[in-house]
């Protein structure tokens, strides 16, 4: 059993990293699109009221101060706070936030366990009464992160389907897969919660498990913890195939779509890219579009019936 969870865990982590990387790369590799910004643009100086550099006369002659850190903070913060939901649907938010925090904390917990295992391998004792203060701090952080993840995730996984069923709009747009996910995630968090409360109140077994992982020594664990770990590994494998990438893509969408206000200035790198895109061939069949010609040629034509090619 110990060997199984070691192998499974490695597979799960490799898979999640690979699939996420593929998905994010595919997202980023799409060509630059036409500007479609939406205000407020957070890196703008006057973001508070949604102002842009277009508010100044001859904007192209003025500096365009840009605070990328603010944008980054703003978008990351929302992963932990979900402000739009708080503002607009408080009941939904009450379940959605714990549900999401469950994800974030359970993954953080495992990452911390990895570091704990490394520290333990290096000789640090991690426990409530560890001789070194670092060991005691580490212990407390692990306990809080893990405990919070289990409680929050379990609460969210129970609350979400209830909210979805109770609200007309949400119910209409829910799919069977949503309910499957809630159930599956409930089992994952719930098994962790039970193992923690009933068998492993110090979460010691996770440190042993991670130590086993990095030393490739199958650990001796209680079957309940093993069950949770197997479920968690399946959860990791499953995650990239759900919409969970939105933790990252939503930030990309903010930066590369909603807040993308980079002007196309003569001689810029962007201009070169656009020239390339304008050279692509179009295959639209509308009568006003010269099928088979380049985008630029189609745009230079007037598309008027008298100048139009014979369309099939």
């Amino acid at each position, binding site marked *: 059993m110990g060997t199984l969870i070691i192998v499974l865990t490695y597979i799960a982590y490799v898979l999640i990293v690979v699939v996420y990387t593929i998905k994010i790369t595919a*997202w980023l590799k*799409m060509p630059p699109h036409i*500007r479609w910004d939406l205000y407020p643009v957070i890196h703008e100086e006057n973001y508070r009221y949604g102002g842009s550099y277009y*508010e100044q006369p001859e904007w192209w002659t003025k500096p365009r101060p840009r605070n990328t850190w603010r944008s980054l903070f703003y978008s990351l913060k929302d992963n932990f706070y979900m402000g739009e939901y708080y503002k607009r649907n408080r009941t939904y938010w009450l379940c*959605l936030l714990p549900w999401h925090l469950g994800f974030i904390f359970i993954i953080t917990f495992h990452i911390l366990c990895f570091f704990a295992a490394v520290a333990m391998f290096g000789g640090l004792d991690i426990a409530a009464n560890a001789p070194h203060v670092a060991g005691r701090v580490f212990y407390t952080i692990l306990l809080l992160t893990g405990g919070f993840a289990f409680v929050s995730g379990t609460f969210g996984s129970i609350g979400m389907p209830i909210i979805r069923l109770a609200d007309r709009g949400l119910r209409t747009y829910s799919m*069977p897969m949503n309910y499957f996910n809630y159930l599956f995630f409930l089992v994952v968090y719930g098994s962790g919660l039970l193992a923690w409360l009933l068998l492993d109140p110090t979460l010691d077994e996770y440190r042993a498990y991670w130590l086993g992982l990095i030393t490739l020594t199958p650990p001796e664990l209680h079957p309940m913890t093993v069950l949770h770990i197997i479920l968690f590994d399946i959860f990791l494998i499953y995650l990239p195939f759900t919409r969970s990438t939105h933790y990252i*893509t939503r930030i990309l*969408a903010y930066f590369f779509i909603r807040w993308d206000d980079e002007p196309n*200035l003569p001689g810029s790198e962007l201009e070169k890219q656009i020239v390339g895109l304008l050279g692509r061939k179009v295959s639209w069949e509308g009568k006003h579009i010269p099928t088979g010609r380049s985008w630029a040629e189609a745009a230079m034509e007037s598309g*008027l019936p008298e100048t139009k090619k014979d369309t099939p």
Partner: protein
Amino acid sequence: MKKNIHIDDFTRPGGQVTELDPAELDPLPPPYDKIDKPSIRKLTEEQRKRMDASLDGIVAIGLTPPKTPEEEKAFIDKFLAGIKKLFSADDNWTFLQPLVHTLEYCVKCQICSDACPVYISSGRQDIYRPTMRPELFRRIVSKYIKKEHPFLRKIKDSDIDLNWQTLARLGELAYRCTLCRRCAQVCPLGCDNALISREIRKVFSQQMGIAPKELHEKGSVQQLRVGSSTGMTPAALKNILEFAEEEIEEKTGRKIKIPVDKKGADILLIHNAGEFLAWPENLEAFAIILDAAGVDWTLSTEIAGYDSVNYGVWYDDFQFARVVIRQSQAAKSLGVRKISFGECGHAHKAGIVVADRVLTGDLIIPRESSLPMLEEIVMSGRIKLDPGRNNFPVTLHDPCNMVRLMGIVEPQRRILRKICPQFREMTPHGVENYCCGGGSGFAITQSTNFPDWRSAVSGRMKMKQILEAFQDVPGAEVKKYVCAPCSNCKGQFRDMFEYYGVWEKSGILYGGLVELIVNAMADLKKPFIQWEWH
């Protein structure tokens, strides 16, 4: 009245998906809570035979049903081929990334629904949810483009049975969204359901050659052919300008020559040509201000050079690009230093922002809004202004295209705060404003009962906001002014105010920003704004 709408309602041949019940619309304050005529006219039997109205009994496109099963199949196949092109980086590099993102990452949380004025005003009709179009679209993609396994479609609830009628309904539904993008603004996932409306319109136009005739045939096609979507030729423009010069002299005593095709001028000013015909006072006011401030400017008589509208931004990337290219060419041939856009929201967004990644090389001519320039003139003291002349209640409508979609929020407000002592904001305003209801071509769409719909439904929220902004002075005896620095919005206000009898009941006039500036000019003998303009 049926409220819970399912996908099957869209795919079912015959019948109507929703019947709008006036009693269910979001209530307006008195006296507008009672209207004495049917709020939306019903189509005649003959119209129904000719045009598909099976979505909600309203017609914007009005497709004619196919005559044979072969015709139906050809229609569907061609449409599906078009959808496929939306996912091609060659055919649709312009919007591929936002499209894919929206389709893949929407979690159907419905946060956007509560932000949508059409959905709310309609009394929360399911079909108008911002998520409804994407839902239909996603299902079509799942089944016919990605060809997902039936089991997957089952657990993702993404099945759909396509027929002609479904597509006709989808096409109409794409024209029940003003593209105001208020929904997109609140989406925590960065999805943009307004874009889906536009992409559906694009497939209809770019692939099928189908679009409301006001947008295509009589809109962008006409603009590229004769120079303006209004059909106004350069010769007619010159006549109108002569008339405007006479009017200016009559109203202000000033003899102003409106510069046309002036080579090497500093600024090419492009107005929405609707102003020339419907609101000449706007272009006159521009001429008075620029003349008084000593600005070196010109108008153009080139194709699209005297009409800033760009309807393509609402339905067709190619028509859009063609117009911006012509506008830049007009500026280039005059050798101006920059292009300035007059009071037109969508022209701002199209010509200044969206155009940005279509123009290259020597067609990249600096383009800006006229509002910051006006602010500079007003604040500089170059013209003497007396706010006392504007001592009546004024509120400001934020054209979405100018404000939410390009961040020009404060210049117009700073002007109004300076020259209108009774200026008050609507709630909400600025980037969170509500669309006038005429966005994305609605204001010019006159098809059958569509104008009723846009007054009764899509403009309803704005109507409510305006009335609320003036609730301290509701009666018609106090003359009030809605400043709408956008031709398209003014078109909508004209129709909507007439529909509700707003002048008679509440004494509210709509107009542009420059009119208020000129009205405040201290050395004019008589007021520039005439309440009879209503």
